[in-house]
């Protein structure tokens, strides 16, 4: 027998109370663990998504706020346009390796079965340039040439969701012109999986936006020149430059307020649970003063009693920590769904990232929580003199 088995057996005496305290800790630790997992995962996933764009800078129409830039990334449409002249100006800036125009168009498609309308995004692109930005693209079927008409490429997720296949002909634009699917992109894991891609000129024609572009995606020759290029681009009238760092920063800021709200909730949950533990322990220490007196009479030092009480606390919080961590691992999908609903922008992939370090941290945190909560009850119990303890029990 050692102090831990003694403490564990003591805890089993009040099973209901112990279980409720453990559950309280488990809930707090589970929320903490999920938030930390979310915190690291969110940034990681966002970074990955930004990198997968293959773009260093975006030129958007002036007056378009950064929030709109995040909409563009997500496939939103803004009612302002740039012109071919702007593209020429941007392309001529030194150190710009590639400046490719894009037109975005959104339309609503009604599902025949459910009657629900869902937004669909069409990108008008220059294929040759796009492949330089995204050399990892692979296609089933073929890419289109920039001068082709009546052709499109679709993302893998879109194809699966809408049951689209190669060679299928779909109506597009106000005139419901026939467009054939010539290629289906292999899964990229980012937003591209959701889009329709048209040759730029064809998209401009079909949707009545001749000569108009929504954004210019810029690839810089040398990464260290990003800010210099950005400054040059700002000189072009009508253009506002958005760097990927800014987009990320904006998104992180927007997500930040939601995260601080979550953090507050967790802090409150942890404080409540800490007071719950201290209360439970003090109650159990007070109930057992006579027993502590007996222990001292049979040879226990004050520090032995304190150690036992501390071991009891750590056992409670550690079991709570383990339970909470397992609950967070099991319930991560539910938590992610909940959090995605709360955040203004969510990367498409799973952004709750669990790492062994995080598990260790959560468990270590629960041990520290136990030590902190156990100090006062342990000190109180260790200070009792045997006679005081025995007498107080007899009163």
């Amino acid at each position, binding site marked *: *027998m050692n102090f831990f088995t*003694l403490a564990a057996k003591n805890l089993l005496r009040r099973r209901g109370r112990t279980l409720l305290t453990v559950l309280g800790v488990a809930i707090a630790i589970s929320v903490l663990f999920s938030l930390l997992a979310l915190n690291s995962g969110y940034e990681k996933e966002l970074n990955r998504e930004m990198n997968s764009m293959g773009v260093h800078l975006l030129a958007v129409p002036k007056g378009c706020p950064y929030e709109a830039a995040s909409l563009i990334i997500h496939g939103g449409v803004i009612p302002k346009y740039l012109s071919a002249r702007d593209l020429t100006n941007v392309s001529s800036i030194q150190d710009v390796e590639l400046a490719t125009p894009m037109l975005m168009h959104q339309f609503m498609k009604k599902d025949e079965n459910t009657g629900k309308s869902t937004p669909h995004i069409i990108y008008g692109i220059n294929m040759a340039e796009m492949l330089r930005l995204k050399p990892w693209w692979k296609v089933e079927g073929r890419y289109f040439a920039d001068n082709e008409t009546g052709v499109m490429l679709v993302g893998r997720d879109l194809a699966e969701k809408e049951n689209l296949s190669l060679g299928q002909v779909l109506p597009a634009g106000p005139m419901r012109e026939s467009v054939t699917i010539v290629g289906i992109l292999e899964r990229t894991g980012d937003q591209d999986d959701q889009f329709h891609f048209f040759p730029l000129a064809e998209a401009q024609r079909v949707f009545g936006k001749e000569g108009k572009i929504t954004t210019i995606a810029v690839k810089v020759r040398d990464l260290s020149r990003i800010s210099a290029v950005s400054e040059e681009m700002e000189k072009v009238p009508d253009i506002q430059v958005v760097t990927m760092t800014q987009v990320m920063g904006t998104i992180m800021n927007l997500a930040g307020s939601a995260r601080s709200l979550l953090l507050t909730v967790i802090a409150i949950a942890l404080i409540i649970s800490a007071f719950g533990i201290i209360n439970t322990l003090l109650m159990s220490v007070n109930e057992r003063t006579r027993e502590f007196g007996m222990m001292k*009479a049979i*040879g226990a*030092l004050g520090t032995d009693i304190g150690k036992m009480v501390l071991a009891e606390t750590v056992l409670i919080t550690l079991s709570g920590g383990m339970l909470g961590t397992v609950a967070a691992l099991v319930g991560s999908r539910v938590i992610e769904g909940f959090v995605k609903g709360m955040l203004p922008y969510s990367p498409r992939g799973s952004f709750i990232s669990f790492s062994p370090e995080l598990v260790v941290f959560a468990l270590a945190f629960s041990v520290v929580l136990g030590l902190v909560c156990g100090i006062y009850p342990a000190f109180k119990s260790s200070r009792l003199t045997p*006679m005081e303890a025995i007498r107080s029990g007899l009163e």
Partner: protein
Amino acid sequence: MRAIIEAQGLTKVYRRGREEIFALKGVDFVAFPGEFVSIIGPSGSGKTALLNLLGCLDAPTTGGLQLGGVETSGLRERDLVRLRRENIGFVFQQFYLMPTLTARENIELPLLFSRKNGNRGQIDDILEMVGLGDRGDHLPGQLSGGEMQRVAIARAMVNDPGIILADEPTGNLDSATSEMIYKLFSELNHQGLTLIVVTHNLDLARKAQKMYTLRDGQIVGCEERTRPQR
């Protein structure tokens, strides 16, 4: 013979608000190795207070106490614990067994505190000695009152002390069980253990070699008789 425990002029004053309660008023006490001493007296006469002072569970207000030749006044709590651990085993009226520990684990408890490793054989021997050879794995809730008190006596014995201090050890037991407990004490005493028993039970008290009578915190009588033959 040198006394195993000796006290001179023990006084204990408790304060309750402004009131001072004299639990003991200048008590002299002596017990020799292997002696069986009983302390009797009406409720409130100071029996338990004396036993607690003798066991170093409480410090006297004035007076001196020597345990195994060591003067206890002025010792730090840590040293008192060590002295108590090595010399004294306690038996309480309420048994004070840990309900979630088996009889065997309850007996092992003092070893945990004294950082000694108890081997199974040693605990088995003690269990046999108190007549509970087959009850070691039972929880206190599965034992009778007499059996629980025997576990408590075994627990008091495990550190191999020279003295057993018992506070009303038969107070919660019927007369037949009390008789069994007395027999056990008697056997332990015959093996050389010093027994100091506080009791209301006059029959039990009279079986001791020396019987102190306390009244209002003072010794009012000390009868000595020869050790009964086995």
